[in-house]
């Protein structure tokens, strides 16, 4: 057990390192690829276009090491990253760490609510469909899942806004603050996640229900409910939780876009803003936080799999 956990943690740690390197390199390339004189552009972004002079540009250039040789600048850049020096936002002037601290909590709220909602909607429906294969619920769930997966999260969000905010007027369309604001963004993410986990749990349930051990449990006289709780649930849980790991990609990508749609003050929203404003330190910080959040959630999924499925543990 502990050996499996150690191996898992080491491989996820390596992945986290890869994420940091990839984000650092990409943002470094981003600074080099900006058109025009980078120092002037950033200075303009920071102080406004009227207040830019050569001194301001020079200060920016020395702060970001824009004059040195590309390779040494790259080494310097990665060195800073390794020490956790993320710098200051070029737009607000606040330290990137501080901004991230504010945003991470909001993004986590959104992501975790979405996962919980998805798990409340998807697997129960999927398991019911799997127990009644070929019936109306099964077919309806396939159609609904295919339809939902053909809509990107931001389109689901748009449709939800149209329905619940504009037409019905039940929930606020955008913003942040009260619990009512959390519903629509979380639901936009949860519906897509639920669609897939419903199908995964439907297939798993169908497989388990047609397995010999399941038939045996029924034959020996257990009621259908008891058979399900005792022999079905845990076996269905393994692929559903394992598949959550795959779905995390959808979740993280969705968080970026859905936060932008709903003006949710999280990391994804900040990433998009930083990309538009060419706020390079914030781009690096937010992309890094997103990537590391992805790795961390993946680690949690792996640990959950180990906990549910004894076959994964070495004897």
């Amino acid at each position, binding site marked *: 057990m502990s050996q499996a956990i150690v191996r898992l943690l080491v491989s996820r740690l390596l*992945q986290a390192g*890869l994420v940091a390197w990839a984000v650092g390199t990409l943002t470094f390339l981003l600074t080099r690829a900006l058109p025009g004189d980078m120092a002037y552009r950033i200075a303009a972004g920071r102080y406004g276009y009227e207040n830019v002079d050569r001194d301001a540009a020079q200060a920016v250039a020395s702060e970001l090491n824009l004059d040195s040789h590309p390779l040494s600048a790259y080494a310097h850049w990665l060195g800073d990253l390794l020490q956790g020096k993320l710098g200051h936002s070029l737009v607000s002037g606040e330290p990137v760490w501080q901004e991230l601290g504010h945003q991470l909590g909001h993004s986590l709220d959104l992501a975790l609510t979405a996962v919980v909602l998805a798990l409340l909607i998807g697997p129960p429906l999927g398991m019911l469909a799997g127990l009644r294969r070929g019936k109306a619920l099964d077919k309806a769930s396939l159609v609904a899942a295919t339809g939902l997966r053909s*809509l*990107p999260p931001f389109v689901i969000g*748009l449709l939800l806004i149209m329905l619940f905010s504009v037409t019905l007027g039940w929930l606020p369309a955008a913003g942040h603050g009260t619990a009512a604001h959390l519903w629509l963004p979380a639901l936009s993410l949860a519906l897509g996640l639920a669609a897939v986990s419903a*199908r995964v749990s439907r297939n798993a349930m169908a497989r388990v229900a047609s397995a010999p051990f399941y038939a045996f449990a029924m034959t020996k006289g257990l009621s259908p409910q008891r058979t399900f709780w005792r022999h079905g649930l845990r076996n269905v849980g393994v692929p559903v939780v394992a598949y959550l790991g795959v779905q995390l990609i959808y979740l*993280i990508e969705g968080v970026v*876009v859905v936060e932008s749609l709903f003006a949710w003050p999280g990391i994804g929203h900040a990433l998009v803003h930083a990309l538009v404003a060419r706020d390079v330190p914030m781009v690096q910080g937010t992309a890094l936080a*997103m*990537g590391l959040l992805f790795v961390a959630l993946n680690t949690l999924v792996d640990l959950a799999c180990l906990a549910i499925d004894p076959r994964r543990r070495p004897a």
Partner: protein
Amino acid sequence: MTTFTLTPRWLARRPNARYMGLVLLVLLLLFAWLTPWLFPADPARQNLLHTLATPSLSEPLGTDHLGRSQLARLASAIRLSIGLALLSVLSAAIPGVLLGVAAGWRGDWLDRGLGLVADCVLAMPGLLLVFMLAAMAPGQFWSLYVGIALVLWVEYFRVVRAATRSLVTSPQLQASRLLGFGKVYLFRRHLWPELAPSVLTLAAFGAANAVLAVAALGFVSIGLRPPTAELGLMMTELLPYYQEAPWVLLQPIAAVFLLVLSFQLLAGRDPR
């Protein structure tokens, strides 16, 4: 864990769904490429006297907030999405399959080296990479294309590598090899027929993801710039006019939905 199973023949799974997807895709292709012939209109031409017009005979899909022909814009946006999707799928699938076969066949350092590159790409959600690459050259078609293709090739590589590993040791391939057939022959005769169904499924999913990625980029205004007609961008532009003209906003939404749906159905597997 779900393992990737090779389907025996193309269309073996869910033939009905796949035909539906194919028909839908052909209809979308016809719509996108025939519209400029039947209703020649410039998708960028504004007419501020006729903004948000309801559908009529001369403007079958109405006009947008700048009085531009919605029909021409929608057709042009679909052409862009399909074109970009097919282009990036092709340029991801060919190197992905070839490298996968090479890594699975040769093994050793080539396998480990390419595996490491693949792990680097997979370490992060693909859309984040596409976002950052797209930000390097904002509004450029090629940066979107490079970003999407760069993210997509890994899937082909991993699936093909895993399948090749087991196929290379199969008796029939060993027999052909002993008879002295060349590598190209072995690939064509023994590997490709086994790989093709999964590669085609991946290609369909890849095309769906490419359409979604372009729309997402356009929607958060990192992707292509106005006045380009692009589905995500159109949604952002038309959102403020939802109350006055809901039918205009629903058009790009329906287009994205139908495009992705056709590719998902074509893939012939459960949605992922």
